[in-house]
């Protein structure tokens, strides 16, 4: 899972030579054996390294604040989203939906690595949502649809159908 994600990220970043990854432990944490130093362990660590490698530091945030926000969402992705039970998923979706109400991207007005990794991580949840739920989490759906159409991001994942108009009247279920 994480490995395909890293492959897609490499292609998005335009890295010519694909890296070889291994996994470690029961949770299959990705490991990158680096030629010039010690091994890199963990999705976020490797992803940040790849971003540097591709000389796209803006994907980690332009300002100090933005960098902090990006780091926060990357952490959210691997600590909360990836370990969530069915019950927790509802809370995560509700919170994320509220957060995205006044934002185009997770870090505000700029596309960052946080958007890519959150999109990869949440895809299996969104793909299962019924039309009505997608409408309930309207802001997530809008953000998700935007990211899946962002050039070069989607790669290994199937597109999710998103209706452009509301079909459920608000307040009634």
């Amino acid at each position, binding site marked *: 899972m994480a490995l395909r994600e890293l492959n897609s990220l490499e292609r998005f970043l335009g890295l010519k030579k694909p890296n070889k990854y291994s996994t470690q432990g029961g949770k299959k944490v990705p490991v990158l054996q680096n030629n010039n130093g010690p091994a890199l362990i963990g999705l976020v660590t490797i992803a940040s390294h790849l971003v540097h490698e591709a000389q796209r530091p803006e994907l980690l945030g332009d300002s100090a604040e933005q960098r902090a926000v990006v780091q926060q969402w990357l952490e959210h992705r691997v600590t909360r989203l990836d370990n969530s039970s069915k019950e927790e998923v509802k809370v995560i979706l509700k919170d994320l939906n509220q957060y995205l109400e006044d934002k185009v991207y997770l870090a505000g007005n700029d596309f960052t690595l946080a958007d890519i990794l959150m999109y990869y991580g949440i895809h299996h949840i969104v793909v299962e949502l019924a039309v009505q739920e997608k409408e309930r989490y309207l802001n997530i759906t809008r953000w998700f649809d935007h990211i899946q159409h962002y050039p070069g991001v989607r790669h290994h994942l199937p597109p999710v159908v998103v*209706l452009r108009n509301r079909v459920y009247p608000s307040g009634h279920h």
Partner: protein
Amino acid sequence: MTKENVQGAGEDEQQAQSKKALKKQQKEAEKAAKKAEKQAKLAAEQQEADEDDFAKDRYGISPMVQSQQKLDRALVRVQDLTPEKAEQQIWVRARIHTSRAKGKQCFLVLRHQQFTVQALLAVGDRASKQMVKFAANLTKESIIDVEAVVKKVEQKIESCSQQDVELHVERIFVISQSEARLPLQLEDAVRPEGEGDEEGRATVNQDTRLDNRVIDLRTTTSQAIFRLQSGVCQLFRDTLINKGFVEIQTPKIISAASEGGANVFTVSYFKTSAYLAQSPQLYKQMCICADFDKVFCVGPVFRAEDSNTHRHLTEFVGLDIEMAFNYHYHEVIDSITDTMVQIFKGLRDRFQTEIQTVNKQYPSEPFKFLEPTLRLEYKEAVAMLKAAGVEMGDEEDLSTPNEKLLGRLVKEKYDTDFYVLDKYPLAVRPFYTMPDPNNTKYSNSYDMFMRGEEILSGAQRVHDAQLLTERAMHHGIDLEKIKAYIDSFRYGAPPHAGGGIGLERVTMLYLGLHNVRQTSMFPRDPKRLTP
């Protein structure tokens, strides 16, 4: 020494005992005296009261009405209590909805059906203290006759349906007394869900309502629902009669299942067994073969499906239509949809009060429909669902969630809560369904939907005995059991189509309710056989 001692102790004890007994006796005597005094006082008071009560002929419990006398007394209905009746002295029969005593006054809310009016009893030259006390002690839901003067009020009475007048009671008699404890409170039963949660007020759950249906049916919501349902039946009849239909009555005890044997009730029938009709299907078709041309039938139908859902009942009222057509079954679809539209219009125009009443407890959007009715083909519907991300096969039947979603998609696109879905896959329909001449995978069959839920299932029927036999065999049906049915098509049978509607579902979906039990007066489901 020892003996003496013991004796001494014994004496002491005896003395002590007698002392105790004496005290006890004294106390009891005192008690008795007090009691007697109290009783005497009460009796005296009572007597005094009785003697004092100048109004004792103006109230009381009437002897049971056994039709002893023909009273020449007009009873005014609560709904007719309007300012035009001000200052008139009238008689009213109603239930006590609530009563509230306040010093020398007693306020009653009197209810008849869904209408309520405030009544006032005050100590004065018409009513005595005892009379007011009597009125205040009447149990809720008792039926009373009151004589009163209608008075205009300055401030509208918000809690009653008759807001501009109140009744000044002069006489009050109980016709039928209710037991003091009610199994449920009417106010609780009409409270919208969620409202009153903060005040910790109760709503009544559905099983309690249904267990005490007689009381639940008295609520304004229930009164409105079933008055509107009666309207559906009447509009259905009136419209079809105007179109030249004939009303027929068909047997409900039948020898063979009409739509597959899985969900029929078997009843023992002397030395053999019979079934309860799942629909008047075969009989209405036989009437067509017997030259009745256009028939309809209103009556009970039975489904032995063990499904406990919000929209299934084991017995419901079917409104069935069957008619011969000239060249194309769309003639029949048009006739049925027009009938439905006439019903919707009639409800909208004549039952606005009832709709508003139900909306107070169960808010919903007004029911929308188009003229002429929207007709979609099954293929188009599948395409719409696929475009919304649903994965399904072209000839797969619609699941309930998909039906509902389709309803939403159609509403969004065409702004209608009512539409027809035409050309169902042949494989998912009963054996007597006419195949589509252009594509054998499809059929000349249709469903009609209200708010995304199916209310009618219909089709052009096979009117050719040969083809009918083939189709029955294809479905693995025992030809012996449906011989009479197949034979009726051998002697000249006109092309025909029809459909059957569930009355409870139509009412439920028109009003935007969520459970079919709300629109069935005495619902029957796998778990409920009473009341």
